[in-house]
């Protein structure tokens, strides 16, 4: 063992309160130390040169560098010893500046402490093994899960950068929730006018493969090389043949709910969601189809001019290899009908959700853009909006802000006035949250220009009376009860994670919170990463957000993927956990605590199952090392014996 110890004086930063010559002298007596010297500025060029020279002349195999914080210069000195011909991890830095000379004015105290720390460093580096990361090849392809605006944006950004992208959408068309919106706040752009061109671009992009009616079935592998099975659900329509002529939908005798219109209209068992759907391909819903329910019909098959109907079609597994995954599964609206008994639990047809109202406002909606209330088709005069349904409401277990309700309610109030000039909108709200650019101005316009009446307070009860809905609430500012005879009540329902988000998270091994929103890698510094390398988040799947924030995050995720996939291979950190196969008892407590899913089961010849660390996933936290009773999984560079030796040496 040939250890060199270098004690930096850092000018007088260290030397003023630590007698570096005494530290050098003490270091010389430590086991295995064959070289020790003090250098005025070790990080300077001549300083680094001195280290390199000593390594080469004295054939050093390990170096202890006593100086500033390793957080400052560890990389500098790792590179230096590497230039000297050593493995960079055979360097140990001990902090005798921030943790010693700068905080202890007494030179004896400081010197003694510095010697302790050097001894600790020597003991630790004695037990250090050379480390090198492995490289894993990167598959230059990305998977985007979810075809809403987030998925579309991320897919297009990546595809434009030359990356082959597969976009998987659960429903029959991309576009997501944004495609169902009429206008967007605060500019009142037509939602589909800005979105549909992007949807078409996806369809036509050479680098994008679009798979609709499909979900992720299984995910294997890790950053750089995921293998994903995608299940394409049978729709009884041969996608390649369907021309989107919609004759089948026209002739189909089976009625079915209109999901695109949030249940506001009626559709057919075979249908295309909406005229701008991408891809423009019909799909058949077996549960509503006479052919399947009654066993005879076959109308669509007969009328289809393209011969695109295949009743025998089965689910199909499409497998793909990807270097990275962007999750953009968006949101669903909170289902209020189960938890607001005083609002009728969905029994009053004229109490509707904001998305249903959005469809009533939309020119492509079931009413062609004429606002007519569901019960009798009458045009409402008095419209009551109630904010914060299923959000900011502890009583239904959803304390978080939906972050868009205030704004879209203002928008809908404005649109109501535009559609029905003599109407009056009332908005029950808790607080008006309008923090975005132009948002506050917008919500004020709803009041000042469009006459919406804002009432601060909750609605206690809604009940029908003579063709009207009586809305009873409290105006907490005025301190009085309010009763409004409404023609239509619109609930500003909050945003929840998309159905099945938790299940998808488990497949991808990413974490999610109690509401199944996915957890970002770091709340501040890694907003689009997850704790699983190579899996990124875009849009409302990470938490409620509006369109601009969604698009920004989607582009950010795309940028991360582009950066990742621009490398041919990935170098993994060498400070990862490793398993001693001979001693592993296969209890998998390591796997239980690993936040990154970096531990997998390995079957040894002979049948014994042991833990195996996937280097590219391991982040080196060391949780597994502590969870493993015999420490057969241990964190390289921070082994038990290294830490034990440090403890023993500082206490000597």
């Amino acid at each position, binding site marked *: 063992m040939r250890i060199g110890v270098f004690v930096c004086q850092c000018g007088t930063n260290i030397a003023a309160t630590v007698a570096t010559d005494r530290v050098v002298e003490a270091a010389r007596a430590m086991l295995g130390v064959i070289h020790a010297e003090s250098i005025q500025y070790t990080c300077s060029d001549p300083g680094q040169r001195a280290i390199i020279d000593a390594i080469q002349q004295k054939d050093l195999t390990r170096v202890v560098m006593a100086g500033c914080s390793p957080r400052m210069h560890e990389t500098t000195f790792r590179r230096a010893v590497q230039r000297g011909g050593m493995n960079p991890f055979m360097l140990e830095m001990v902090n005798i500046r921030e943790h010693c000379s700068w905080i202890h004015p007494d030179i004896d105290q400081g010197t003694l402490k510095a010697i302790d720390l050097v001894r600790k460093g020597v003991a630790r580096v004695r037990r250090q093994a050379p480390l090198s990361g492995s490289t894993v090849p990167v598959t230059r392809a990305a998977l985007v899960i979810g075809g809403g605006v987030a998925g579309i944006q991320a897919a297009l950004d990546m595809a434009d950068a030359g990356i082959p992208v597969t976009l998987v959408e659960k429903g029959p068309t991309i576009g997501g929730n944004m495609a169902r919106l009429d206008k967007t706040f605060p500019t009142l752009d037509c939602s589909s006018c800005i979105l549909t061109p992007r949807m078409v671009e996806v369809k036509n992009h050479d680098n994008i493969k679009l798979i609709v009616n499909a979900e992720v079935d299984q995910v294997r592998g890790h950053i750089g090389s995921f293998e994903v099975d995608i299940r394409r659900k049978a729709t009884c329509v041969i996608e390649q043949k369907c021309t989107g002529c919609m004759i089948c939908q026209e002739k189909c005798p089976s009625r079915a709910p209109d999901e695109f219109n949030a249940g506001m209209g009626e559709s057919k068992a075979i249908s295309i969601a909406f005229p701008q759907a991408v891809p423009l391909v019909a799909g058949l819903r077996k549960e509503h189809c006479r052919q399947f329910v009654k066993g005879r019909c076959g109308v669509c098959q007969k009328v289809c001019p393209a011969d695109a109907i295949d009743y025998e079609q089965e689910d199909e597994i499409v497998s793909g290899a990807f270097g990275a995954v962007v999750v953009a599964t968006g949101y669903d609206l909170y289902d209020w009908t189960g938890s607001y008994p005083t609002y009728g639990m969905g029994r009053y047809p004229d109490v509707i959700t904001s998305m249903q109202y959005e469809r009533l406002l939309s020119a492509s909606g079931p009413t062609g853009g004429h606002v007519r209330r569901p019960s009798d088709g009458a045009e409402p005069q008095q419209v009551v909006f109630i904010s914060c349904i299923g959000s900011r409401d502890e009583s239904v277990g959803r304390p978080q802000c939906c972050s868009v309700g205030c704004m879209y309610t203002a928008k809908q109030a404005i649109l109501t006035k535009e559609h029905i000039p003599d109407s009056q909108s009332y908005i029950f709200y808790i607080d008006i949250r309008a923090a975005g650019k132009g948002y506050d101005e917008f919500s004020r316009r709803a009041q000042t220009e469009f006459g919406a009446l804002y009432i601060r307070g909750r609605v206690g009860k809604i009940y029908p009376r003579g063709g009207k809905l009586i809305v009873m609430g409290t105006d907490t500012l005025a301190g009085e009860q309010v009763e409004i005879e409404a023609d239509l009540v619109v609930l500003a329902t909050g945003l929840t994670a998309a159905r099945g988000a938790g299940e998808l998270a488990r497949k991808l091994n990413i974490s999610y919170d109690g509401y199944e929103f996915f957890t970002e890698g770091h709340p501040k510094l890694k907003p689009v990463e997850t704790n699983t390398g190579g899996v990124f988040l875009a849009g409302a799947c990470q938490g409620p957000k509006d369109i601009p924030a969604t698009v920004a995050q989607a582009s950010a995720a795309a940028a991360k993927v582009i950066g990742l996939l621009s490398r041919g291979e990935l170098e993994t950190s060498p400070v990862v956990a490793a398993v001693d196969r001979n001693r592993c008892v296969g209890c998998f407590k390591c796997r239980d605590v690993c936040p990154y899913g970096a531990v997998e089961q390995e079957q040894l010849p002979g049948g014994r199952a042991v833990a195996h660390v996937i280097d590219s996933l391991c982040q080196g936290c060391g949780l597994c090392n502590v969870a493993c009773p015999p420490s057969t999984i241990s964190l390289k560079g921070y082994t038990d014996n290294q830490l034990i030796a440090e403890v023993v*040496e500082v206490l*000597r």
Partner: protein
Amino acid sequence: MRFIASDGLPRLLERLREDGAEVWAPRVVRDTLNTVLFSPWSEGDEIETGAYSTLSAKQLVLPATERLFAYRYRLTAEGEKIEIEAAGPGMHAGETVVFGARACDAKALGVLDALFLSTPGQSYNDPHYRTRRAGLTVITLACTTCDSACFCSSFGAGPAETAGSDLILYPVGGGYLAEGFSDRGRELAALDIFEDSSQEKPALAETAVLELAGLEQKLLDIFDDLDFWRGATEQCLSCGYCTYACPTCHCFNIFDEMQGDRDGERCRSWDACMFYTYTLETSGHNPRPEIAHRYRNRMGHKFSYYPANQGEILCTGCGRCIRGCPAGVDIREVLKAAAARPATPGGALQQETES
């Protein structure tokens, strides 16, 4: 015969202590669940003369852990050097008296002597063992009763065995008859704490007898009968209790005890052939991976190899391994079954060429 009254015993032991000897005797240990151990005795301590001690008295000649030497790395003018300082026997190096050993315990010392004091050239003459053994006086308590774990009668004279004892005390009314079997023992019996007596020696216990004839060869003959050994050890948990409690087991481990990186000691410590790690090689290979393999070696060592090499059976029938086994394993049952088992063919090369 000489006689010592029961209340004379503490006086005898105190006299020995005054003469500079450390005295050990079986005592119930405070704050334990009725554990009897040979423990240092001083005046006023109660001695347990009924129940058997959980551990034998072998620790007085083979301590559970002892230093072999100390090492130091020192920086000298010629660079780093190693200094090695051999340790003396340390514990129990002077006069030591063990009171209340049983015939089986005393005999065991002689069995160990066969290995540790063997003549130079044949094997090894252990300096620490020799020093301690030379300073050890064994005062044996003869057994007039026994329990069902005892089977010393299978080995020589059984309860009447005198080998290894300096002085044997035979319980009689009011005290003990004393008989010396060595110069040291006769010297003690002559002390004025003892008086002459014409009482008869009491009848000694009759312990169970285990048939041992032919076992030395039989254990070799059924060596390859792993089914037998697996069956015999199905309850064994592979702890080291039986080996540590055994008065004749003597295998040890050698390891370094560091005091920081520069200084340390090399120690030897009791080791148990029942541990997996005992024969584990650094390559991961283990010639005795299963409990069955290890127990087979343990039986072989006691009843076949040691008799072949040293002329002594490595067991005196004290029954400690039976009384204290947490899993209720009874060595006698295994040996009986071994005796009844038909021989199987085999040999070292067989396994090697098959593996």
